[in-house]
C-alpha cells in the first residue's frame, strides 16, 4: 500500500505548480487522477475526494491488520473522524445553520459507533442533538449542555468529546505490545500537550490575566497543569516554553518569533511524521509499519487539501510550503 503514497517529489511539484490548472494536471497523473476524470473540481470538491480516498485506504489497512492493531486503529482514526463530524454538526446547530449546509461540510464516512448522522442533522437545536446522542457513547456530553446554553459557548461540549475520545482509545491501546504503545503514547501525548499549550496561549490573549477553567485542557500529560495555568494567565511565553524542553520548545518556537499558531500545527505534524518514520526504521513490519503508513496517508491528505486550496486561490508556493509538511521533505 505504501506505493499508493505520492512521491515527495510529486508533492513538491504540486506545491510548485504555477496555477490551479497545472496543479490539476499533475494530480491527474497520480492515483487520484481516476477520481478526477471528466470533472473540473473546486478545492472543496478535492477536499472531499482526498477525505474519501483517505477513508478508503484506512479501511483497507484496518481490514488487513491483526485484531489488536485493527481495534486500536479503528478507535484512533475512525472515532476521531466521527468526532470531527459531530463537532461540525454541533457548531452548525449552535449557529442555526441549515442541515444541508452542515451535511456538505461533513467528512464522507460510515459512522464508527452506530451514530446516525441523518438523525443528528435532523435535530432542531443543540439540546435536541444532545438528546439524540443519549443512547451512544457520547451521552455524557449532556452534563455540560447546561453550561454551554447558559454562557452561550460551545467549547465545553467539544472538549468533552475530546475527553471521550481519549478515554475510548485507552482500552484498545492497552492491548498493544509495549513498544507499539510507546509509539502511540509519544504521538498522542505530544499532540494533546501541544493542543493544551495552544489553548492556554490563546486563552492568555483572549482573556488577559483570567484563570482558565480546568475543563479547557482535555488531558494533562507531560506539560503540567501549573505550566498551563501560568501560560494562560499571561506569564512570559519565552520562559514557559524554554522550561518545557524538547520537543515542545522546537514545536512551539513559532509562537515566540512570529506568534504563528498555524506553524506550530505544521511543526507538530512534522514531529508526528518523524516519530512514525523513526519507529518504522527500527521495525519495518507489524504496528510501526502500519502506523507510519496511516500517518503518512493522513498528512498527505492534509497537505493536498492545503495545496489544492492554495493553488485555487493563487497563493505563492513559498507560503503554501511554509504550512505543509511533505513538500519540504523532498530532496
Amino acid at each position, binding site marked *: 500500500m505504501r506505493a499508493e503514497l505520492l512521491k515527495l517529489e510529486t508533492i513538491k511539484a504540486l506545491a510548485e505548480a504555477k496555477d490551479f490548472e497545472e496543479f490539476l494536471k499533475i494530480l491527474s497523473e497520480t492515483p487520484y487522477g481516476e477520481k478526477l476524470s471528466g470533472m473540473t473540481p473546486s478545492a472543496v470538491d478535492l477536499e472531499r475526494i482526498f477525505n474519501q480516498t483517505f477513508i478508503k485506504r484506512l479501511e483497507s489497512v484496518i481490514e488487513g491488520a491483526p485484531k489488536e492493531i485493527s481495534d486500536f486503529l479503528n478507535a484512533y482514526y475512525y472515532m476521531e473522524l466521527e468526532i470531527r463530524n459531530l463537532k461540525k454538526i454541533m*457548531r452548525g446547530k449552535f*449557529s442555526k445553520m441549515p442541515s444541508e449546509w452542515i451535511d456538505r*461540510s461533513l467528512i464522507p464516512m460510515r459512522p464508527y459507533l452506530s451514530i446516525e448522522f441523518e438523525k443528528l442533522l435532523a435535530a432542531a437545536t443543540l439540546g435536541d442533538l444532545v438528546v439524540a446522542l443519549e443512547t451512544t457513547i457520547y451521552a455524557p456530553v449532556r452534563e455540560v449542555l447546561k453550561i454551554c446554553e447558559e454562557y*452561550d459557548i460551545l467549547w465545553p461540549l467539544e472538549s468533552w468529546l475530546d475527553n471521550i475520545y481519549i478515554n475510548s482509545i485507552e482500552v484498545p491501546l492497552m492491548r498493544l505490545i509495549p513498544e507499539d504503545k510507546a509509539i502511540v503514547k509519544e504521538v498522542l501525548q505530544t499532540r494533546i500537550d501541544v493542543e493544551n499549550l*495552544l489553548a492556554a496561549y490563546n486563552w492568555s490573549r483572549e482573556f488577559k490575566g483570567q484563570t482558565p477553567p480546568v475543563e479547557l485542557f482535555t488531558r494533562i500529560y507531560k506539560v503540567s497543569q501549573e505550566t498551563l495555568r501560568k501560560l494562560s494567565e499571561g506569564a512570559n511565553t519565552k520562559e514557559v516554553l524554554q522550561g518545557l524542553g524538547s520537543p515542545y520548545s522546537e514545536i512551539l518556537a513559532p509562537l515566540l518569533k512570529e506568534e504563528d*499558531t*498555524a506553524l506550530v500545527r505544521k511543526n507538530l505534524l512534522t514531529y508526528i511524521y518523524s516519530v512514525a518514520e523513526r519507529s518504522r526504521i527500527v521495525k519495518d513490519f507489524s504496528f510501526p509499519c502500519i502506523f507510519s503508513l496511516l500517518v503518512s496517508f493522513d498528512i498527505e491528505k492534509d497537505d493536498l487539501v492545503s495545496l489544492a486550496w492554495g493553488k485555487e486561490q493563487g497563493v505563492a508556493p513559498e507560503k503554501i510550503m511554509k504550512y505543509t509538511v511533505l513538500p519540504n521533505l523532498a530532496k
Partner: protein
Amino acid sequence: MSVLSGARPTKGYLIDMKKRISFVERGCEFLKLKRDHLAKELSISLEVLRGRRDRINERLKKVYEDVVTAYLALGPLEVRSQTNSIKKNFEIDALPKSVMGVLYPSIRVVSKPKIEGKLDPVISTVAAQMMEIFEEIINLAEFEARAERIADELGKTNRKVNALENIVIPSYREVIKFIEDKLDEESLEELVRTKLIGGVIARRRE
C-alpha cells in the same frame, strides 16, 4: 428682463427695498458664517480621514494573509465549520446627526459576535483582527459620509453666498439707486417748479 422692470419709484417702495436688502445682507452674513463653520468641519473630517483608508487597506492585506494561513493550516471545510461556532449577531444602529443642519449617519455598534474562547487558536487571532477592522471600516464609512455631505452642503452654501453677493444684493442696490435717483430727480423737478411758480407770483405782485 431688467431688474428695474418691476421697480416703482416711490418712497414706500424704497423703504421696502431697503428693508429687504438689509434682510438679505444679514442672511448672507449668516450663510458666510455657515460656510466658514462647514469648511472648518470639513477640514476636521479630512484630517481624520487622511491616510486612514490606506492604513485600513494595509491592515486588511495583513489579515487576508492570516486568513490564507488559517485556510492552509486547517482546510476550507474546517475553517467554515469553525466559523459556525460564532453566532451571527452583528447589529448596528444608524442614527441621523447634524452639523449646521447637515444630516449625516452616525453608526453605533449595538452588538457584535463574541469570538473569545470559541475558535481554534489559528483562526481566533484572525477573527479578532477582522472584527477590529470591521469596526474601523464602519467608522471610516461614517466619516466619509459626513465629509461627503458637508462638502456637498458647503458647495451649495458657497453658491448661495456667491449668488447673494454678486447678483441679488447688487441688483437690489441697483434698484435702490434707481429709485433714489428717480426720487431725487422728482424732488429737483418739484423744487424747480416751485421756484418758477414762486418767481411768476413775485413778478405779478410787482
